């Protein structure tokens, strides 16, 4: 089955393809799908879905566990794709049309489209660098050696999350760091952005 997904996916994941097939064959109960959508929103917010809720879902559905799991995987990928659309590219009508194309009912497609503006997913991402402080220390003497006079760099890295990392960099490692940063900057300048 061919999908024209422009905003949500570059390549439609297999789980979403399977979800779409199940939806279009009308074997998925709308209430079960609604529960899976609610579960996925809670999942991306970092909320725990307790075992009893899953058991209740399986009890109310005549579908086997593996199919429910596959459906949930598809719904997770779909909702995540909506969250990940960049702000400047997000057009609600186009997203709605794509979701309906995958076999979702209009109400559910509208609910998922609205997630972008109403929910903030707790998707783990790498911490961002906020600020760097450095100093060059010269060790005069230690408990092991009376006279060293060895220079090294102490760097304090402050992250946006509030975490602070202090690292001790020997001179040789610092030159290696400088080289890597220079290589990275070189690649930046070559990028056609």
């Amino acid at each position: 089955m061919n999908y024209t997904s422009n905003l949500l996916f570059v390549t439609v994941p297999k789980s979403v393809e399977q979800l779409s097939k199940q939806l279009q064959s009308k074997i998925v109960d709308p209430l079960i799908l609604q529960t899976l959508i609610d579960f996925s929103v809670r999942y991306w917010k970092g909320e725990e879905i307790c075992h009893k809720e899953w058991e209740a879902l399986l009890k109310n559905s005549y579908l086997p566990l593996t199919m429910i799991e596959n459906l949930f995987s598809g719904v997770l990928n779909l909702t995540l794709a909506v969250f990940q659309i960049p702000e400047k590219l997000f057009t609600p009508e186009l997203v709605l049309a794509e979701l309906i194309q995958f076999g979702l009912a209009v109400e559910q497609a509208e609910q998922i489209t609205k997630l972008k503006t109403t929910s903030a997913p707790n998707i783990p991402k790498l911490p961002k660098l906020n600020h760097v402080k450095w100093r060059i220390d010269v060790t005069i003497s230690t408990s092991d050696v009376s006279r060293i006079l060895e220079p090294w760099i102490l760097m304090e890295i402050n992250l946006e999350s509030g975490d602070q990392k202090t690292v001790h960099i020997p001179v040789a490692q610092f030159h290696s760091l400088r080289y890597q940063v220079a290589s990275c900057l070189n690649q930046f300048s070559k990028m056609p952005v």
Partner: protein
Amino acid sequence: MTKNFQLVDLAWELGVTAASSCEEQVGQTYVRIKMKLNTGSSLETTVMELSLKQFYDLLHELEKAQNNMK
């Protein structure tokens, strides 16, 4: 209740800051103390950096404790 860890090893380092992104730190002398502590279940390493004044304050307190032990 505070936990009492046993000091297993202590190492120190004396140095001076030759340059820094914060200008006020340049020329400052520091003493860095690395303590290896026995927590009961594992060995923990704690590092602390003291300015000269803080180091002399610590030395003063240690000498007071030693005098009281005699």
